[in-house]
């Protein structure tokens, strides 16, 4: 059964690594729904968060291949239920729409969104949440006309009580020490 999985990859911060990671998806004709990369809690180690809609067996195999990439330290996969995750969306609307009625203001309050910048011409609204929530706000705001809209890739954190990052780094240190 196809469902959403969140793949987390810890890697060295090297040029070309993004390509080396994504070709593993391309080769299996697996679509990436969203992808976020940035530095992790450990300096020099990047963290990829990749969302796919796939069968678990295929996800498991691609994660196995990702771990083979020399610069990848560790790759995991989780279901949505196993993680707390967020996306961020920005909406640009004409400032006039806020003057014309209080409906936009009410939408912003109801959605728990916030206003980032107001100029004479436009206002930028920010909302974090799941895709359905940011989409819902987009559709609501769009009744008044949204000039520009952008949504980020997903960031996610496990529900595990233990931080896996330190656990696997310890495990790796042990393995590396055995090589000597």
């Amino acid at each position, binding site marked *: 059964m196809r469902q959403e999985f969140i793949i987390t990859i810890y*890697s*060295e911060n090297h*040029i*070309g690594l993004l*390509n*080396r990671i994504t*070709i593993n998806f391309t*080769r299996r004709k697996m679509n990436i729904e969203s992808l976020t990369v940035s530095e992790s809690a450990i300096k020099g180690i990047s963290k990829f968060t990749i969302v796919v809609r796939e069968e678990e067996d295929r996800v498991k*195999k691609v994660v*196995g*291949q990702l*771990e*083979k990439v*020399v*610069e*990848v*330290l560790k790759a995991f996969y989780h279901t949505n239920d196993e993680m707390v995750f967020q996306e961020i969306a920005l909406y640009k609307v004409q400032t006039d729409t806020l003057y014309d009625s209080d409906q936009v203001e009410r939408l912003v309050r109801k959605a728990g969104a916030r206003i980032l910048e107001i100029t004479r011409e436009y206002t930028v609204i920010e909302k974090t949440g799941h895709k359905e929530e940011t989409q819902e706000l987009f559709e609501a705001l769009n009744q008044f006309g949204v000039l520009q809209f952008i949504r980020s890739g997903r960031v996610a954190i496990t529900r595990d009580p233990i931080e896996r990052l330190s656990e696997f780094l310890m495990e*790796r240190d042990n*393995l*590396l020490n*055995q*090589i*000597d």
Partner: protein
Amino acid sequence: MAIKRITGSKAVILSLLEEGVDTIFGYPGGAIMPIYDALYDYDKQVSHILTRHEQGAVHAAEGYAKVTGKAGVCFATSGPGATNLITGIADAMIDSIPLVCITGQVASPLLGTDAFQESDVVGISMPITKWNYQITNADEIPDAIAKAFYIAQSGRPGPVLLDIAKDAQFQEIDFSYKKCKKIRSYIPEHQVDPFKVKAAAWLIDQAKKPLLLFGQGVIIAQAEAELKAFVEKTGIPAAWTLLGLSAMPTDHPLNVGMLGMHGNYGPNIKTNEADLIIAVGMRFDDRVTGKVSEYAKNAKIIHLEVDPAEIDKIIKTDVAVLGNAKKSLAMLIDNVKENNHDAWIQEFRDCDQIEREKVIDKDIRPDKVGLTMGEAVRITSEKTKHNAVLVTDVGQQQMIASRYFKFTQSKSNVTSGGLGTMGYAIPAAMGAQLGAKDRTVCCFVGDGGFQMTLQELGTIVQNKLPVKIILLNNNFLGMVRQWQQLFFEKRYSFTELQNPDFIMIGKGFGMEGHQVTKREELEDGIQRMLDHDGPYLLEVVVEKEDNVFPMVPSGASVSDIILEA
């Protein structure tokens, strides 16, 4: 090590010498000229083989790596030089062959400007290298080369590529070299888990009809002695994959032959009767498994494997023993009970008898008029006392040679397995000859594959490499024709070749040779080839429409193997 100030190019050569490189296969060009200039001063320490095409260089490096177990090294220039390596790199990737490929690249300020002979070789080679890296600063050269050799040769081996910008080749650096021993993000092999070994041993001791399948992992891990000791202690029959050939002597009583589409009858059919499969250093390729959903349904599966991604990739395992096959087999030997499976082995012997009557005798001792590939292979193997290195191309001759050539020592089989690269044999044979200078190298090639890389005859002659080339000529792309006959109603769509005079071509390159068309000339012909001091081309004109059997038809189960059409 003392630090000296040298150019990046010289650093490349010194780094290779530090890694013990004695042979480089390559082809110069604009963007790698500084490295070739540095190489000019080191002709005593390292021999460079100038091939006639970069594809020849990379396949030669593969052949060298296969017989030595060390990384093969090749050089090419940027752009077309680098792209000509791609087929060989892909071949090495799928067959786990250690290669270090060094390509020149345009000077770093020109990167991304569509400069003359610029191609994004790092991008192009990314899916088919274990690791690759572009060097734009000479300071990076020693460490990158150290890392390249470490990655290529450790764990599950594979090809790596270093792309060196021309300006970095000219730059001066303070050179010192340190071999790479570990990389933070890379675990080449896992420690063998004793608990898994115990679980595997328990299954092995219980099994009534166990079958061991071994692949190239045994050769890579140098686990031949452990494999032999394990099967001898347990009495378990063992079958090899195409790349596992030569990891055990052919005539060992527990060697029950080859798996796969054109493998032996016994190991294929018995796979589905076995109650335990012990897979060692093999990856359940589709040519081995046939229809996966019907594969080894009665068996528990034990998989000894160095690459975690291979576990459960195709066949679900009951016990996976991760790690180096030499270590895991040694631990298994200590944990299993002595045993024998004589009645079960007899079933394989019975299968052999059927196969011999229906297929083998007709192949290797035919009584019909036309020559067969099988008899040429049998005689060559016998006359070299089963001691030669076998190099094969891809197609019918590959399958026939793999079936009938016999082995007495490991690292004696050089073939393109996973990628199935036609044109592989001739360049791979010259690499194998350089890697095994004292051994006889017998290269079987078809008329199709011969014409893909025949320019390397020139390299063989120039370097006086005594390679024995046996061209099995049926004037067809034989394997495709066989499939057309069996599965496409004999519609021979573009498989018949109008061939040149091969012997004259050989002579043009300065290679001795002759053609054999009759059975009574064959033995003497092969003897003449083997006795000749130097390279030799023996063309054996075989039956046009012979087929390779047995055969597991594409998509069928291994138990549906057919012995005749």
